[in-house]
């Protein structure tokens, strides 16, 4: 069926919207300003030589522009969002109410400590929960996101090695299936990276890891549950071997939501782990923020934690701002301007208090149950990458598409037409043509069943061998059809330029 074209370019209530610069009507403005009085020019050569290029629009035009853009957004509040590893779950509105309390929302980092004691207490409360849940000795609250938390952990490890005369340790071991941030963080800290292969089960090959341990190894970074959605069962054994070799054990806590309330990280022998508060403890996130990556530390690494840190002097809260003093005597210094993502702390504490330890334990259990439900029912037509059961994520490879001409990418695009945000594709890299799905604990069985029906329908359609062209044409119903991702990566147009001949703007917007 061919859709009729419209004169406006709009499709019903799906409205076309140009860039705000293309909507420019010179001189149009939301407010009438009086003519500027004539004054003596005092800027000399520094005065503006040309217009600064701000678009002219009326207030209703600006309101419509941004409202229309917001309507093109797909979010967890509009539908199912099984993007793997991202933990796109419902964010309770109670958190938002708490974060908007004036005592939390209207404070400034430069206020005197005596006027923000409640805020410091909240940071300490959040820290106390995290230490309690993980069994770890300390927590650095300031890292702004997961990868920033990794950096915090590795900088503590580096500081500890330097303090102990172990500066010759210059290599970090990272499994092949790791998040890309792990080797990137290690490289940023000046370490070389060696990859540890996975075994056929999708877990770290412990024998290979042990074979790599030697006096140059500074630390091992392992994600648990790992990016294949599987629990790393050998952590205690790994931790012992790592410690015996004089190295530290960093755990990537991106998937902590699958085990929270079920085990204490400290019992696994972990030295440092970041916690993605925004994921596990429910702050609206995506598109780059906001996140928070507090990093829990073992007693051996705790002395090196970054400033600023909240301390308690008698019964009164205070902030230690400077490395080299008091509780921060051996601190490696400051990695963020202030105390961290305070608004995320408020939401996390609100969530933890509302859920309670028993509620958090049930949440991780339900997340794992939901993922296993997807794994079991989708196995009817799709091919699971590993034997189940899985943890909070289900991973499929593309064997079920073999010979159909349809690829993982085509399935993802067709899912957009079904009204679902596609799962993560082609990651983890160790799985061929991977589809990585994380349903989270907050989706109902009815929602999961709807998603399963869509995906089973697409799998059967692909296998019928008659629908390849349909798949290549997907998505049909989105505001834009399939984008040329290759061209976008090879020849990106990163900024709008004013048209030289009146036609340039159109081209730049495509």
């Amino acid at each position, binding site marked *: 069926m061919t859709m009729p074209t419209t004169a406006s370019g709009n499709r019903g209530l799906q409205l076309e919207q140009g860039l705000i610069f293309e909507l420019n009507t010179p001189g149009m403005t939301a407010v009438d300003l009086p003519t500027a009085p004539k004054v003596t020019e005092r800027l000399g050569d520094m005065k503006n030589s040309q217009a600064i290029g701000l678009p002219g629009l009326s207030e209703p035009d600006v309101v419509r522009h941004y409202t229309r853009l917001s309507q093109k957004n797909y979010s967890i509040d509009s539908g199912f969002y099984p993007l793997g590893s991202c933990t796109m779950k419902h964010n309770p509105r109670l958190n938002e109410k708490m974060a908007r309390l004036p005592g939390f929302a209207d404070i400034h980092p430069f206020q005197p400590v005596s006027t923000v004691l409640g805020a410091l207490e909240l940071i300490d409360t959040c820290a106390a929960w995290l230490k309690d849940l993980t069994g770890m000795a300390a927590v650095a609250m300031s890292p702004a996101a997961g990868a920033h938390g990794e950096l915090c952990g590795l900088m503590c490890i580096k500081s500890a090695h330097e303090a102990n005369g172990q500066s010759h340790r210059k290599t970090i071991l990272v499994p092949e299936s790791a998040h890309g941030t792990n080797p990137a963080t290690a490289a940023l800290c000046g370490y070389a990276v060696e990859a540890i292969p996975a075994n056929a089960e999708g877990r770290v090959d412990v024998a290979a890891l042990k074979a790599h341990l030697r006096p140059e190894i500074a630390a091992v970074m392992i994600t648990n549950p790992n990016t294949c959605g599987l629990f790393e069962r050998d952590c205690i054994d790994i931790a012992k071997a790592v410690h015996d070799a004089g190295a530290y054990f960093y755990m990537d806590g991106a998937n902590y939501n699958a085990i929270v309330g079920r085990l204490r990280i400290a019992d696994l022998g972990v030295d440092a782990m970041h916690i993605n508060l925004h994921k596990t403890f429910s702050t609206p996130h995506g598109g780059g923020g906001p996140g928070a990556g507090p990093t829990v530390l073992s007693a051996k690494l705790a002395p090196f934690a970054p400033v600023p840190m909240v301390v308690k002097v008698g019964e009164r809260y205070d902030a230690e701002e400077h490395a080299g003093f008091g509780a921060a005597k051996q601190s490696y210094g400051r990695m963020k301007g202030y105390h961290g993502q305070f608004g995320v702390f408020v939401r996390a504490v609100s969530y933890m208090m509302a859920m309670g330890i028993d509620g958090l334990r049930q949440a991780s259990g339900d997340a794992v149950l939901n993922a296993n439900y997807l794994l079991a029912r989708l196995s009817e037509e799709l091919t699971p990458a590993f034997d189940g059961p899985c943890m909070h994520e289900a991973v499929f490879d593309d064997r079920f598409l073999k010979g159909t001409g349809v690829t993982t990418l085509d399935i993802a695009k067709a899912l957009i037409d079904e009204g679902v945000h596609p799962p993560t594709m082609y990651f983890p*890299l160790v799985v061929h043509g991977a589809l990585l799905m994380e349903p989270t604990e907050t989706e109902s069985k009815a929602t999961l069943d709807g998603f399963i029906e869509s995906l089973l329908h697409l799998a059967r359609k692909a296998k019928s061998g008659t629908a390849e062209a349909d798949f290549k044409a997907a998505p049909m119903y989105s505001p834009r059809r399939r984008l040329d991702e*290759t061209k976008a990566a090879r020849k990106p147009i990163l900024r709008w330029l004013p048209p030289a001949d009146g036609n340039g703007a159109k081209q730049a917007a495509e």
Partner: protein
Amino acid sequence: MSQTRFTKDHEWIKVDGNVGTVGITEFAQGQLGDIVFVEVPPAGKAVKAGGEAAVVESVKAASEVYSPVSGTVKEGNSALPDAPETVNSDPRGKGWFFKIELSDVKELDGLMDQAAYDKFVAELS
């Protein structure tokens, strides 16, 4: 006389005397999909067999290109960064990554010849 050898990481090396030209195989480019970014090593860079030598990025994944042998880079393919699609269209020809002066020609003995590599790839799919 030149000889071509292959690694399990899907690099090829074509050797004349003690100078080899390195690239990735047809199978590798097919698995990666549309290649959008390539970084080649500078001349003079010392590399070890199995060590990282170049970077290749596609719409699906970013990956290292490992040097099949130890030695010193003589030249990186300067045309590739501006035309990464060449790796897709001509992986065994114009899509070469770098030329290397081998420090130990005997290392080639540990690599696969065309027949062994074809068998290796057939077992993967």
